[in-house]
């Protein structure tokens, strides 16, 4: 491995952190607006449900892989390093897009449109993260 190339272990950690941070940020916004009575319990339930169902596959896979692979050694190939970078960039892009539908709730957005958009855009952009993450983890177990 070239000097400066992140190890697989580190990238897995960053990837898991990215997914967890964005997931909890989404939930934090939902809880914040609910506790301030900006939405009712019915809409809160709907919002949490759609966030949960959109994130569960990726967060589950990334976190399980991270905690289930403690004993693996660091990767040494350039190909694996580039795969990990693509996985990181795609994950950040996907999460930023999804967060962009929740953040407006803190200003003037409506929960109904956020639920609609997250439910539609999340699965629509799954091609961006699902294959990349799959390939990255497949490569890192080689």
């Amino acid at each position, binding site marked *: 491995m070239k000097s400066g190339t992140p190890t697989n272990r580190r990238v897995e950690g960053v990837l898991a952190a990215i997914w967890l941070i964005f997931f909890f940020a989404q939930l934090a916004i939902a809880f914040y*607006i609910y506790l*301030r*009575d*900006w*939405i*009712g319990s019915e*809409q809160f339930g709907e919002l949490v449900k759609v966030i949960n169902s959109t994130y569960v596959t990726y967060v589950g896979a990334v976190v399980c892989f991270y905690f289930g692979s403690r004993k693996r050694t660091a990767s040494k190939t350039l190909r694996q390093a580039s795969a990990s970078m693509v996985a990181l960039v795609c994950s950040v892009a996907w999460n930023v897009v999804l967060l962009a539908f929740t953040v407006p709730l803190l200003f003037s957005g409506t*929960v109904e*449109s956020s639920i609609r958009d997250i439910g539609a855009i999340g699965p629509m952009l799954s091609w961006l993260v699902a294959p990349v993450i799959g390939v990255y983890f497949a490569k890192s177990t080689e």
Partner: protein
Amino acid sequence: MKISLASASLLILAGLAPIRLSAQEQPRQCSPGDGVASAGSTICWNYPQARSVYISGIGVFPPVGAVNVNPATQTVYTVIVESQAIFSGTVVVHGGASRSGRIDLTTLESEYLSPLRGRARGTSYTTFLERVLTTLQSEMRASIDAEFELPRGTYVFVTHPRAIDSGEQRNRSFRVSYAVLVDRPSAGSADIVFSVRARIEFRRRSEETWYRASCCEIHHPIVDGLMRRLQNAVPPRERRN
């Protein structure tokens, strides 16, 4: 009018459905050949023996006349003819898309809450209907969503929801829609009995869906306010009668 007043009174006394005008007596849209030049349609009527005629959404007119209407949507105008008895009919004027503002009594009673009954004395039925219309439109600044007659003769005004002050609840906005139900007076009665109801909805800061507010704490002052206006709207001269 071809229906004899005697037979009309009998029908009222028997407690049957309100008297409808027969096909020949219905007010109608004047044909272009009638010589009335206007961009919209014209409703014509001719009831020389009546006292007054009320046309929904417009007001009270003399027994014989015509009025130009130019609705954006297909609109059903209810025409109330007041003579010794009260008759009603409808005219459909075709505008653009059709609009159905009718609400059945069950919906009115379940959605429009906190009913308050009032009584107006010394005013004619058609004059009172116009007064309700004016009060809602001019004083309450509400637009009328629907105006129609229920099968048993109660005349109904339903207003479009209008924003109201949310008071201390800054995270919520409220809106109100009024329903005013005016009972058709029985023959010889000097009183007009009416009731006011309100449907109040709210939504929180980050919601776009409106939810119905439960009865009745917030309803009472709002319904009370309209009731007071309607009762005060009867001019003193008429109230003395």
